[in-house]
């Protein structure tokens, strides 16, 4: 008991994740022995990739805040690169893309120095107005609207939305919860994905949006929602300043918005005719496939907490 007591909440939760990962690995190994086939091979790949991702994430989160922020910025970079590599682009916009990439360090720097106003306006106001202006100066109007729309949306989801993960680190530093709030968001978002998948496999009958994501069912969605809300109620008081009920509500919101993020990125991929955003993570697809839920849950969780729990004074 003394050893457990000396662990910080962040360390204890990370320990719990590894315990869960070990249980999952054993389960999958047993499943593979009893039912060999493509489905279990895929599941094995997925679990192996989870080990990798969780290890990298753990190291990044436990080291220090600068390392964590740089790591999150790198994830944003990989997501943006995947996005820009998938969409049709105009040759004339090649130099514009450099500005889009430069937006990442700027956005994450604003998060790091806790300049909330700059963080909130940099992409939705400044980049949003500046990029089309620059593209106009380039002089090619053919495909202009399409290019502006695609670049703006991509920047919003991969840089602005994901940037909120770094903002949570600033918030954690200010409230002496450290990486707790970020861990709360990421663990619950990813856990919700797994819970939805598992409930869907066990009980899934009624499809939600078959034309976008044929494997998503009401049973999976609701099962994930309930499980995530319960887990949030337990973890929240340790990792965030929020008491049990607020934490549960936050978990409910993370699960719900995570689901919307998941199917929104699915719709985007379906429109482009790809199944996965890339082949970076075996069994999962690309970075965008892994952070799809986070793209929605990160900003909504942050603003929910900021406006409703802190009356807009979280930072």
């Amino acid at each position, binding site marked *: 008991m003394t050893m457990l007591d000396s662990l910080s909440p962040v360390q204890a939760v990370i320990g719990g994740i590894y315990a869960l990962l070990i249980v999952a690995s054993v389960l999958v190994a047993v499943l593979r022995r009893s039912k060999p086939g493509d489905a279990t091979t895929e599941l094995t790949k997925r679990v192996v990739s989870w080990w990798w991702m969780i290890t990298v994430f753990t190291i990044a989160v436990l080291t220090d805040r600068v390392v964590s922020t740089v790591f999150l910025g790198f994830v944003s*970079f*990989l997501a943006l*690169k*995947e996005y*820009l*590599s*998938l*969409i*049709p*682009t*105009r*040759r004339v916009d*090649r*130099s514009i*893309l*450099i500005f889009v*990439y430069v937006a990442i360090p700027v956005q994450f720097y604003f998060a790091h120095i806790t300049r909330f106003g700059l963080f909130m306006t940099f992409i939705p106001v400044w980049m949003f107005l500046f990029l089309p202006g620059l593209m106009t100066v380039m002089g090619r109007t053919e*495909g202009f609207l399409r290019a502006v729309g695609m670049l703006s949306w991509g920047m919003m989801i991969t840089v602005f939305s994901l940037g909120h993960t770094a903002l949570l680190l600033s918030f954690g530093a200010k409230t002496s919860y450290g990486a707790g709030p970020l861990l709360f968001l990421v663990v619950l978002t990813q856990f919700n994905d797994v819970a939805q998948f598992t409930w869907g496999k066990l009980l899934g009958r009624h499809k939600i949006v078959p034309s976008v994501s044929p494997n998503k069912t009401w049973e999976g969605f609701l099962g994930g929602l309930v499980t995530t809300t319960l887990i949030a109620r337990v973890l929240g008081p340790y990792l965030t300043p929020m008491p049990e009920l607020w934490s549960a509500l936050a978990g409910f919101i993370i699960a719900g918005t995570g689901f919307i993020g998941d199917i929104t990125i699915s719709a985007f991929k379906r429109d*482009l*005719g*790809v199944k996965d955003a*890339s*082949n*970076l993570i075996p069994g999962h697809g690309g970075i965008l496939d892994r952070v799809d839920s986070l793209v929605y849950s990160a900003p909504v969780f942050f603003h929910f907490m900021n406006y409703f729990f802190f009356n807009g004074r979280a930072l």
Partner: protein
Amino acid sequence: MRLLRSAFFLLIVRPVLTIVLGANVRHRERLPRSGPAIIVANHNSHLDTLTILALFPLGDLPRLRPVAAADYFMTNKAMAWFATNIIGIIPIDRGKRNEGANPLQPCEDALDRGDILILFPEGSRGEPERLTQFKKGVAHLVKARPATPVHPVFMHGLGKALPKDALLLVPFNCDIVVGEPVRWGDSVDGFMDVLQSRMAALAATVRMPPWE
């Protein structure tokens, strides 16, 4: 010099290729394990040669010889030093076919030594990301050394990341597909037809978003 070359690839080329470009390589196992062999690839960017060199283990570097135009790479002193010592090119004189000497002689010698040649039969980088008609030099080379396997490699994305005349590298994921080797048949034209259609088939397996 060998150390410098290895260090350049280990510390600069590979990190840039994996982080900035994120190459998705399919059928790496089809690459030749030893020479003599010829790699034939489409040409969109200065990154092409580096990318192909980086597909092989570091220990293979001394065996890998990109074939490049002398008039482009050998005119400037610094460029010539870099091209011959770090990249390890075999410089070829373009357009001196009628002076009696065989312009492909250095390539044939390299094959005889068991090297792996890297050739871009499109001749120049040209319009990026557009496959053009192959020049026949490679067929004449294979005709002279008919036992040599020719491995087609199709690359997409590098021309978007760093096209001709561009100064800045813009990150894009790129795809690299290695094909089954093509062998010498009975005629130059026949060989070129097979090679060109094999390359087109590889290109058809890659998803290429419009880039106009």
